[in-house]
């Protein structure tokens, strides 16, 4: 093709004008993605904060349960309700291959149920100050559930149904089944706290992964919009 000098200058001039007017160019999903990026960061921060809060709360609660529950290597068998708590441990390859929607949904479902069980635990505790700490933790955990929901909606994913047919038994409103004795209940409480801890560790990794895929300031410049 034979370009006259004027044409290439014209192209150059337009490019400059386009770049100059960058903010005015409609960027594809820029606000949505920027919002999602920030939400993901906030959710990540929240999981770290909760992890920290849990350390103190668990320490106090296990002391309340008494030895051997507060001994470092305590590892009781899992029974009854403990089997119904959603597990965070999953095959590494499986975890890695999760798409964003599945990853977020797993987190959302897990914390919704963990919150429910935690609230059940709250009602039984004798000591008033421990009940208060549990109450605060539940509120923060509720915040996490809402935060995850926020991320999901800003990325355009639907929230998992609370009592879907595909969910395992514990999601079907059986709720925290009262165990047959106080000792079993103590073991359930122990595993609940352990699972909560594992989930928070896992979530930090989940959200770290999501952070890398959705950077905070993602702006796409669309030249096609200018008919160029």
């Amino acid at each position, binding site marked *: 093709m034979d370009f006259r000098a004027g044409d290439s200058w014209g192209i150059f001039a337009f490019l400059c004008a386009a770049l100059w007017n960058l903010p005015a160019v409609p960027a594809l999903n820029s606000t949505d993605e920027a919002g999602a990026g920030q939400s993901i960061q906030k959710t990540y921060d929240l999981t770290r904060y909760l992890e920290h809060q849990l350390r103190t709360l668990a320490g106090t609660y296990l002391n309340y349960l*008494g030895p*051997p529950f507060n001994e470092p290597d305590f590892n009781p*068998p899992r029974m009854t309700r403990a089997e119904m708590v959603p597990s965070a441990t999953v095959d590494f390859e499986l975890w890695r291959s999760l798409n964003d929607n599945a990853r977020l949904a797993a987190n959302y479902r897990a914390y919704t149920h963990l919150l429910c069980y935690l609230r059940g635990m709250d009602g039984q505790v004798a000591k*008033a100050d421990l009940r208060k700490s549990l109450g605060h933790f539940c509120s923060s955990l509720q915040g996490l559930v809402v935060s995850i929901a926020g991320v999901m909606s800003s990325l355009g994913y639907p929230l998992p149904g609370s009592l879907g047919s595909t969910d395992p038994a514990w999601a079907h409103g059986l709720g925290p089944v009262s165990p*047959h*004795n106080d*000792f079993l209940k103590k073991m359930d409480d122990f595993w609940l706290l352990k699972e909560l801890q594992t989930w928070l560790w896992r979530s930090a990794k989940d959200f770290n992964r999501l952070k890398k895929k959705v950077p905070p300031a993602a702006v796409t410049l669309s030249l096609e919009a200018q008919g160029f």
Partner: protein
Amino acid sequence: APRSRSSPASESPPHSQPTPFTAKPLPAPRHPALISPQDPTLVIGSSLTAACTVNTDSHLSAEDLYWTLNGRRLPAESYKVLNATTLSVALAHLNGSKQQSGDNLVCHSRDGGILAGSCLYVGLPPEKPVNITCWSKNMKDLTCKWAPGTEGETYLHTNYTLKYKLRWYGRDNTCQEYHTAGPYSCHIPKDLALFTPYEIWVEASNRLGVAVSDVVMLDVLDVVTTDPPTDVHVSRVGDLEDQLSVRWSSPPALKDFLFQAKYQIQYRVEDSSEWKVVDDVGNQTSCRLAGLRPGTVYFVQVRCNPFGIYGSKKSGIWSDWSNPTAASTPRSERIPGVCDPKSGEQNSTLRRELKQFFGWVKKHAYGCSNLSIKLYDQWRVWLQKSHKTRNQVGKDPSLILSYLGGPAGGWRASDLGSTGPYPQRRP
């Protein structure tokens, strides 16, 4: 079949086997072993024999088992093999539970694995709560607090319920808001009748029993307190070194509830913890403190007591103290030597005079429109730069006056405060 623990407030005598009842219709998973009694409640000092029966599916026998209590292995001498699958343990003279959630009695298999557990609740029945005291904030509510009774530590979780009823009306009410003023307190926020006495008592209950306090009778109007006084100001009394004047406003609720108030003041020196109380303040909203130390910082607080409520002569309950307000008494002698105030004072009066002078000059003299106090200031600054010693400043006012002494046409504004050195008149 799994056994449930006995119902809360009933007294279960030690050694008893819990009564069997029909199991709940839930899909009960098969446990590796079962302990009997499950979650018993016992009085301190009692003895207990517990039995662990392994499930036939687990292929374990009684010889494969051992017991721990709160993580500590129990001695084999206290074990007894009852049959092929059951091992018992004898516990004597039990101490109060280590934690309120119950002592953990656990049946283990040889390799340490947990097969079953039972929570032991060992303690004492509650004592009668005592020392019930109540107060009402502005006749709107009632807060009561009490003490748990001589023993205090029951080792078991003890629930306290505050109940109240109007003296001549049968209905019992239960207080709902606990721990508002400490662990043994409750707050009744509304629906309180005046002029009629209430009967108030506290019930304490735990797994071993119930105890009820003596009934306290009171009329809400007799236990009224109010907010502390507001806007407390403490100020000096002129130059008087040993006095401070305190002024405050009565708490706003006083107006709404038509009661009078009497006040009390307390004050202390900054570095002392001893408060001095002024009692005879009456119902004025100001007071003068005398006999104080000069040049000292004082902290002052005021509180209020409502009385004469609906004509009665009785006083109520003192409010909290107001937040401390600080003030200092003046000090008479000047601190010598550190800085000489004289020239400073002279400067400020001189400057004031000059300003007035320049103002007059502007109005009445020709060719002096550029004159202003700014020139004087500029000159002062220039002086400080060119002269090393400060005490020249005190002398210079006389110089400027002599300089100005010449006829109006004899000098120019630019000579003053100019960059050049001060001509001829250098002292």
